[in-house]
């Protein structure tokens, strides 16, 4: 059998292959030869064969059949074999394979070998890929080598120990004694690896950290070593561009950072040396800047005095002006970390940071953008916004969404005037309208609603924007909503802020209808457009045209659109008396927490997203009858019925819950009109029963408002507990607890409530419809009452349930609310 071809020969041959297929053929041929050679247990050429296999593996070909051969090589006595064997193990084996455990014994032997280069191979392999089991088995050997006087082995043992600690943290303790005099070594290799080991230990264990700070007095030692490095003359062995062993300097600075963090004494002890390094390090080359960078990170992280901190930030400021983009990148990253704590110092470099927005590198641009937003405040808002809007215009799409959100946030916080705010929003919508985040639409609408004096201006500008471009959906949605809401201002030709445009009702309707038919409009946008058109029926005179449009869409293929159209149609026909009130101008909206959990209101089996601050349109479907019933029963103009089932289903629109209920159906915030005059306006009669106002529960409800019993009759008891809604203190959250002391369950239990006109009430879904007998459980339900005028809370409740087969119905008035619940 001829000798297998040599490695270099094989490499040369494979490189002559002109196609992938040719290469594959050569490889397969050689692999076959190697395989048969392995089968023959050929010791002489095993090394050569494995080496070739490793080459082919690097090209991407499978080499697993060589794994065991690597182990055989490691076990061999020849240094050549061991070298290739260990290399093969590191390349082909990983700790998930069982095979690698077989190495443990070999490594153990080699760790005790007479030749330091063999020991080195073993340490290297263990430190690179040793599994937890191997580390456990061999930690003792490593620890032994950590104490040797042979610096070649000592430095390797230190890094091997780092790996062992990472794999098996519990073993950290055993290396502690060996660390005692590591730092008194002269050898830089040992020093460097020792610092790495100490860093690993301090990072992992607060106890170790404390130990090294106090007992070992690590900080002074490190300071001394660092000082020597800086002060000592030129050392050719460790010099890099005039700096002595920058690698060691950087590691020491990093360890100092960990030791100084949250520790006054340590921080004090390293103050001088940090200042020295910061001021004396040569900055012309990357090496110097690497050290300065690490120094800055350390200064910012420990409890340094303010002078030092300013020095650090100034270094970063200088970095920003450096030609080397890597340096600029690093500076921006660091500034981003410190902008919260050292805001003023960073502000001084604002103009440089803003210039970085124009950098060509994507990472630098992103950081500059984030930093810019962090630096915006009331003083610089105008200037900064100009730059940021310019950036928004020209930046890559990947930035636009974040930038737009940032602009909105900043504008909301620091807008110098409402007009400026609206203009800024317009600018974002028109330049990056399609990248704006979904939740911006309701936020913007709310903002616009609240800027009452700007309505005419806003709707005019939005209208003009629509004429230009209807492709950007968020813009179109906001615009449609505004036109629907303020269309009357638009056609009236009044605008204070700018030259009013002359536009007719028909032109406006043309635009909105255009949105409905355009291919560019998403279904959500179409919904907005249709609702806007509907709203205009009370603001414009061309009602017939609107009626026609609405009826056309009654047969739209889009289910959502169809449903809306049908309901709006009904508004024209059967409920025309309600239309004006329903479509009234929106009141100023409260800012709601849009991140709150979505609550579900039970609506005859359908579920709806509900809203913290609720509006109550009478529904246009069957539940209206219930509403009228309650109204009839309770009577009186001063009562607003609250209906549990309120809205028809809507799919999730682009806006948040707030807009779902408020915007789409464009419902009035005011109470619905008084019921038909046929209802007697006399005082309703209730059966007031002995309502006790004793608190029922010993545990006081949140906000210290005592609970109360609202109703207690025929075995059914209803208690109210209170808490304040967060964030709106005008909203009281009442939880009713219904309990049943009779022998039988009360089924089909329904609780309804009504409040006077000045209040608004929202009923969430009950925990169940069955109140178990004999007080075995309670049904709970949450009521939210908005009481902006802080009037005395009164409530009328209606209870229906089935007990032992017969239906029971009762009405009651609740007057004994504790004063804290409505003050």
């Amino acid at each position, binding site marked *: 059998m001829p000798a297998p071809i040599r*490695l*270099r020969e094989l*490499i*040369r041959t494979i490189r002559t292959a002109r196609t992938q297929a040719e290469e594959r053929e050569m490889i397969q041929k050689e692999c076959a030869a190697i395989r048969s050679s392995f089968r023959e247990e050929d010791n*002489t050429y095993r*090394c050569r064969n494995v080496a070739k296999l490793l080459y082919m593996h*690097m*090209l*991407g070909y499978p080499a697993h059949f060589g794994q065991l051969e690597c182990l055989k090589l490691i076990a061999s006595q*020849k*240094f*050549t074999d061991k*070298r*290739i064997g260990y*290399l093969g193990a*590191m*390349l082909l084996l*990983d*700790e*998930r394979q069982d095979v690698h455990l077989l190495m443990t014994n070999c490594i153990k032997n080699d760790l005790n070998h007479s030749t330091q*280069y063999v020991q*080195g191979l073993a*340490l*290297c392999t263990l*430190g*690179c*890929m040793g*599994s937890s089991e191997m580390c456990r088995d061999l930690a003792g050997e490593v620890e032994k080598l950590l104490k040797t006087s042979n610096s*070649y082995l000592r*430095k*390797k043992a230190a*890094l*091997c120990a*780092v*790996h062992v600690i990472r794999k098996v943290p519990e073993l950290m303790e055993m290396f502690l004694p060996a660390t005692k005099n590591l730092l008194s070594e002269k050898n*830089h*290799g040992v020093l460097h*690896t020792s610092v*790495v080991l100490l860093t690993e230990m301090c990072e992992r264990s607060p106890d170790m950290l404390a130990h090294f700070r106090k007992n070992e007095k690590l900080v002074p030692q490190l300071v001394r070593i660092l000082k020597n490095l800086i002060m000592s003359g030129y050392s050719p*062995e*460790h010099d890099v561009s005039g700096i002595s062993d920058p*690698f*060691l300097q*950087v590691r020491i600075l*990093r360890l100092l950072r960990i030791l100084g963090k949250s520790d006054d004494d340590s921080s004090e002890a390293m103050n001088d040396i940090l200042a020295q390094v910061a001021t004396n390090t040569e900055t012309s080359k*990357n*090496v110097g800047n*690497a050290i300065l*960078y*690490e120094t800055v990170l350390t200064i910012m992280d420990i409890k340094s005095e303010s002078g030092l901190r300013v020095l650090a930030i100034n270094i970063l400021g200088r970095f920003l002006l450096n030609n080397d*983009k*890597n*340096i*600029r*990148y*690093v500076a921006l990253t660091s500034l981003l970390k410190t902008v919260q704590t050292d805001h003023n110092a960073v502000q001084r470099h604002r103009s440089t940071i803003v210039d970085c927005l124009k950098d*060509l590198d*994507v*990472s*630098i641009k992103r950081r500059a953008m984030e930093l810019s937003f962090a630096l915006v405040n009331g003083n610089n808002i105008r200037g900064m916004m100009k730059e940021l809007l310019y950036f928004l215009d020209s930046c890559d799409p990947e930035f636009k969404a974040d930038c737009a959100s940032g602009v909105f946030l900043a504008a909301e916080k620091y807008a110098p005037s409402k007009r400026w705010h609206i203009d800024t929003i317009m600018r974002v919508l028109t330049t990056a309208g399609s990248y704006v985040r979904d939740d911006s639409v309701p936020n913007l609408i709310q903002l616009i609603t609240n800027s009452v004096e700007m309505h005419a201006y806003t709707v005019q500008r939005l209208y003009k924007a629509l004429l230009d471009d209807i492709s950007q959906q968020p813009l179109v949605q906001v615009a449609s909503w505004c036109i629907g809401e303020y269309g009357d201002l638009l056609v009236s030709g009044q605008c204070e802020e700018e030259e009013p445009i002359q536009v007719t009702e028909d032109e406006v309707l043309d635009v909105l209808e255009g949105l409905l038919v355009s291919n560019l409009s998403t279904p959500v946008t179409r919904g907005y457009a249709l609702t806007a058109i509907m709203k205009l029926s009370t603001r414009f005179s061309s009602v017939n045209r609107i009626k026609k449009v609405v009826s056309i869409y009654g047969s739209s293929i889009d289910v959502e659109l169809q449903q809306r159209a049908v309901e709006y149609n009904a508004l024209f026909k059967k409920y025309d008396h309600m239309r004006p009130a329903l479509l009234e101008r929106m009141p100023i909206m409260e800012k709601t927490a849009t991140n709150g959990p979505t609550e579900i209101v039970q609506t005859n089996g359908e579920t709806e997203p509900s809203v913290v601050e609720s509006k109550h349109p009478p529904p246009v479907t069957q539940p209206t009858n219930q509403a009228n019933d309650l109204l009839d029963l309770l009577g009186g103009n001063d009562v607003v019925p609250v209906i549990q089932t309120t809205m028809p289903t809507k799919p999730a629109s682009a806006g948040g819950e707030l807009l779902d209920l408020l915007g789409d159906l464009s419902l009035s915030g005011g109470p619905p009109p008084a019921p038909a005059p046929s209802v007697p306006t006399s005082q309703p009669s209730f059966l007031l029963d002995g309502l006790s106002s004793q608190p029922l529960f010993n545990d006081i409800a949140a906000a210290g408002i005592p609970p109360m019993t609202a109703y207690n009759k025929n075995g059914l008891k209803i208690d109210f507990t209170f808490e304040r809604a967060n964030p709106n203190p005008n909203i009281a959250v009442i939880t009713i607890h219904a309990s049943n002391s009779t022998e039988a369950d009360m089924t089909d239990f329904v609780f309804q409530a009504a409040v006077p006109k000045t209040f608004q009430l929202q009923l969430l879904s009950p925990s169940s419809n069955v109140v178990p007998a004999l007080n075995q459980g309670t049904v709970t339900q949450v009521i939210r009452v908005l009481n902006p005028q802080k009037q005395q809370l009164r409530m009328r409740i209606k209870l229906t349930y089935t007990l032992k087969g017969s239906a029971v119905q009762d009405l009651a008035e609740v007057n004994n609310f504790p004063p804290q619940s409505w003050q």
Partner: protein
Amino acid sequence: MQFMLLFSRQGKLRLQKWYVPLSDKERKKISRDLVQTILARKPKMCSFLEWRDLKIVYKRYASLYFCCAVEDQDNELITLEIIHRYVELLDKYFGSVCELDIIFNFEKAYFILDEFLLGGEAQETSKKNVLKAIEQADLLQENTFSSGMRC
């Protein structure tokens, strides 16, 4: 450091050193994706990027890209120096190193790397000492009793 890759401008891997446990399949995927990402970058861009959840530091020397994945706390600028030191070592060893040297002597490139870094950290900061160790080890290899048997 989590890993170091050396690859040509055509995307061919010349050296791969992994300091974290990953299967062959995972390594291949990472290499392939990362190589593509870096090759797509323009020359004017900076040497650092965030990729997946790693910090990547890379530098091109002639026809070879040297690419390291480092941890969050690692200093990117000093990593550039580490890369540079490795190139210097190769240069000294091979005498004006070029890509072909690394292709034909890949196992030596690994040996040198393993004398410079261990477990992803620098074990020796003196160029002289690293080269001396390699020299001695090579001599040891020469003097093994099955003399003259070369790979």
